[in-house]
């Protein structure tokens, strides 16, 4: 009860300070997914150069869930998300009179990494990942040879995104069959750089995050191929995510824009338009898979028409291909 009072008070303060100052000082306030962060950061930096410092773009990393908590209370203009908005978040938004526009901005190949010195693993099946990460493995599967007897008697140290992360939600849904279903005895962090550090310093470690973080740290880590539904071991890469071969760990990433911010803050509209115009080149630059041109055209059309809602109807979606993403209808 104390916690809920405190969070309400904090929310009131944040809403007061951010909303008030955003209007007065030409601000764009963004928070959410650490996976989407590198793209949004790159866009914000380019936008900043173009605007010559006249618009302040603030980008936080509180995880997809953390970002949505702020977004549905109207505290931020844009929410970075590595999974679609969920029903409970939509309900909360509706209660607070928040309408949103869902914009896919790129595809990611969620990447499983091990230590550079790990010589025994080059590929993993989804079943092996489930043995490592399943809720039933907590306190039981503690060594590599318990996952596969051919592997050494080395302590298995797991690193992953925390429960506020969309990457955690997606991974647990794809691997364990239920969003947020995971063993809890691993080292969680909303900051993927902490996972990079942890895995790079421990020979028996394994972790996962968005492809961009692997691309940036490939000198320190080893990425593992994932065996797809056709039985082929596929390396996490842009092309494999684009063709749909890298399944089930390829997924779309999004920004959600507050409709009222688009209508009342010209700088937000300008920023979103800039995002969609340069999204392809900048998402590729940071290591993600750009959408085909029609994806950005469709997104720009949604912004122009102020087309609110989601194509996911408040549910998680695993194994979606880029083509499938564009055949889905918006649900208000």
């Amino acid at each position: 009860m104390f916690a809920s009072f405190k969070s309400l008070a904090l929310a009131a303060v944040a809403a007061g300070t951010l909303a008030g100052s955003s209007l007065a000082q030409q601000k764009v306030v963004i928070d959410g997914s650490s996976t989407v962060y590198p793209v949004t950061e790159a866009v914000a930096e380019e936008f900043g150069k173009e605007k010559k410092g006249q618009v302040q773009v603030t980008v936080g990393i509180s995880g997809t869930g953390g970002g949505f908590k702020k977004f549905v209370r109207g505290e931020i203009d844009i929410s970075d998300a590595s999974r679609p908005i969920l029903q409970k978040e939509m309900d909360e938004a509706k209660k607070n009179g928040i309408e949103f526009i869902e914009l896919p901005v790129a595809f990611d190949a969620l990447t499983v990494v091990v230590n550079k010195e790990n010589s025994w693993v080059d590929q993993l099946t989804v079943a092996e990942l489930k043995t490592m990460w399943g809720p039933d493995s907590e306190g039981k599967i503690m060594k590599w040879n318990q996952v596969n007897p051919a592997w050494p008697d080395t302590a298995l140290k797991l690193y992953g995104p925390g429960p506020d992360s969309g990457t955690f939600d997606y991974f647990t849904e794809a691997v364990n069959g239920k969003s947020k279903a995971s063993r809890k005895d691993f080292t969680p962090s909303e900051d993927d750089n902490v996972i990079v550090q942890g895995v790079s310093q421990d020979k028996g470690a394994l972790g996962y995050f968005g492809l961009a973080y692997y691309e940036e740290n490939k000198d320190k880590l080893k990425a593992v191929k994932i065996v797809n539904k056709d039985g082929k071991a596929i390396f996490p890469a842009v092309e494999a995510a684009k063709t749909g071969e890298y399944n089930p760990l390829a997924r779309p990433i999004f920004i959600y824009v507050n409709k009222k911010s688009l209508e009342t803050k010209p700088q937000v509209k300008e920023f979103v338009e800039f995002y969609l115009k340069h999204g392809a080149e900048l998402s590729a630059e940071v290591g993600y898979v750009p959408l085909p041109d029609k994806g950005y055209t469709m997104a720009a059309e949604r912004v122009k028409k102020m087309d609110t809602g989601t194509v996911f109807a408040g549910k998680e979606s695993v194994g979606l291909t880029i083509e499938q993403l564009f055949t889905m209808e918006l649900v208000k």
Partner: protein
Amino acid sequence: MFCGKIAVSAMVVGVSVMLLGGCSTDRTKMNEINKKIAISEAYPDGAPKMIEVKHGGKWYVVGSEKSAVEVKAGKPLKSFVKSIGAGPAGETVVFEQDKLMMADLLMEQFEAKYPKK
């Protein structure tokens, strides 16, 4: 102890609502009161005070001496908010974040020190 805090906080909020119900100036005052309560609840030992650090060509604003030392040593901040164009000449500034409201408070202090014209 928490229940006592809630009761006191609720009374303060309630009284402020009764005294200030109505116009926007009053609402602003009420927000200020609520904000002070929230800050004291979040940081019982005092709200973080901003410390500026320039390191590796970047401008950091952190909330403790410990973080300042770590940033100077090249250690990345565990959690942060990056604000492009926040500096007086449109520079990028990285604000330390925690699980509460540190980045918001540091940004406020920063904006007070470097008001935008």
